[in-house]
């Protein structure tokens, strides 16, 4: 354990892992309750479109990716709010559209292309000091806002229409949540990679839900599952020299599997 901490990249991996598990653990609570499980995958492809746009326009792609993700997240929220379409359908539409948009831009720019996915490459073992600052800043912002509006976000996840009738500003809060979510996703993609973010936004709460029938228990359990997967995964990947991100995701899946078994053998 001490040896593990002697490497700077492992220290940063642990630090970023803890922050991301905390933030994603709490967001995953809402993601699962709102049935937004594909939001991570959907928005990561929006980020792809954003990066392509940045390259096409000659603008720093990180900023276009963030702008693009936030815009798409708001659109997904708006479509759900205005239309008869559920969020998962809206995500499905934009998922494909953004991918196509990115590929179209690549096709339009007649130049030997850099690997856009390579640009989005993030890995928990490749965290720079700047990355760590960025994820800490975004993570704390999201945690504070989520804590401040927790009761309203809970009500909106339960029944958005009723929340509005009960004088809770449901629509603005819904948009706020989508913006927070897209910020976390786009920053985490750059820091730890697409696969890990998508997993940490879903699996912890999915496991937490198996273990508990009340949110007061589900929320801490979700965060705990996220932390356990991340720290345990990093540790195992170090001991057995395995790719760290995949180890974390598979450990989280294993924990979910156990939670599922537990829930279904208990009855």
């Amino acid at each position, binding site marked *: 354990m001490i040896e593990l901490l002697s490497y700077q990249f492992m220290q940063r991996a642990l630090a970023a892992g803890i922050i991301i598990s905390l933030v994603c653990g709490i967001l995953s609570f809402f993601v699962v309750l709102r049935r937004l499980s594909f939001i991570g995958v959907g928005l990561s492809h929006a980020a792809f479109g954003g990066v392509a746009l940045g390259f096409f326009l000659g603008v720093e792609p990180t900023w276009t990716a963030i702008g693009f993700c936030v815009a798409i997240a708001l659109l997904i929220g708006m479509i759900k709010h205005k239309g008869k379409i559920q969020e998962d359908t809206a995500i499905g539409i934009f998922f494909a559209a953004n991918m196509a948009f990115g590929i179209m831009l690549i096709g339009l720019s007649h130049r030997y292309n850099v690997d856009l996915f390579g640009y989005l490459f993030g890995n928990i073992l490749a965290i720079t000091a700047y990355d760590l600052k960025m994820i800490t800043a975004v993570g704390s912002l999201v945690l504070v806002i989520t804590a401040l509006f927790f009761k309203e976000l809970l009500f909106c996840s339960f029944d958005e229409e009723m929340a509005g*009738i*009960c004088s809770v500003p449901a629509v603005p809060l819904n948009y706020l949540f989508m913006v927070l979510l897209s910020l976390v996703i786009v920053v985490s993609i750059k820091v730890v990679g697409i696969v890990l973010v998508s997993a940490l936004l879903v699996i912890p709460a999915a496991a937490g839900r198996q273990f508990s*029938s009340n949110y007061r228990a589900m929320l801490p359990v979700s965060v705990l599952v996220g932390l356990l997967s991340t720290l345990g995964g990093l540790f195992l990947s170090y001991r057995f020299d395995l790719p760290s991100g995949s180890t974390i995701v598979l450990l989280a899946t294993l924990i979910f599997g156990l939670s599922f078994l537990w829930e279904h053998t208990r009855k």
Partner: protein
Amino acid sequence: MKVLEISNLTVVRGGTMILDNINLELEEGQSLAVIGPNGGGKTTLVKTILGLLQPQTGSIRIMGLPPESVIRKRPGTIGYVAQRAFYDPDFPVSALDVVVMGKYGKIGLLRPVGRKDREEALSCLETVGMADFALRPIGQLSGGQQQRAMIARSLITHPRMLILDEPTSGVDAGSQENFYRLLRDLQSSLSLSIIQVSHDIALVPSYSDQVACLNKQLFLHGKPDDVMRSDILKQAYGCQVEFLFHGTMPHRTVEEHRGHHD
């Protein structure tokens, strides 16, 4: 004093006129049953009263204010119980949590839920006879129990008016009458105004002070015994309805129309 005043209300959705020149008034402490066929505009009327839909013409005043202002400036004035209690049967909250939610708007942003709020919620559950189920996960309650919890939620803000949209559609037949009795008791003990929308023309009207028939137009606005005349109902439903009368209580016997309306 009039709790609700609707004048010349017209609602058009997707090019179709759903509500055509509706006029309606409700006195404080009175209960009103709005009955009519599915697709007759009942839910649209409810949503318009709640400010969720904008009318083309006409106005709605709740305690003298438009719906949006009531919801924004006087949280909790209107209580609402929807047709379906909620969307996710496994949502991890207890009945008590759900009741407290009704007060979130009144508690306000950035303020935590206090012990007093939870005690209040418990006493509301007691009012609807659900105190024993306070800590049960909401999804583990029966349809009737869930709707009682939803009523408790709407009561926590001490509303002046309660709006219910087909509240008994998920409640088994045996419990429906108990449910209507509860509403009548609440009406008298809290001097609550109640609007209940239903296609149940058998039971609902007998528990209400007034009945209105709605099928695009609001056909009638009077005492239950007057309304239950089959010619009036025929006009509202647009189909033949026959009744057997046991005293003043009508029972619908022609069942085959139900499938047609759904």
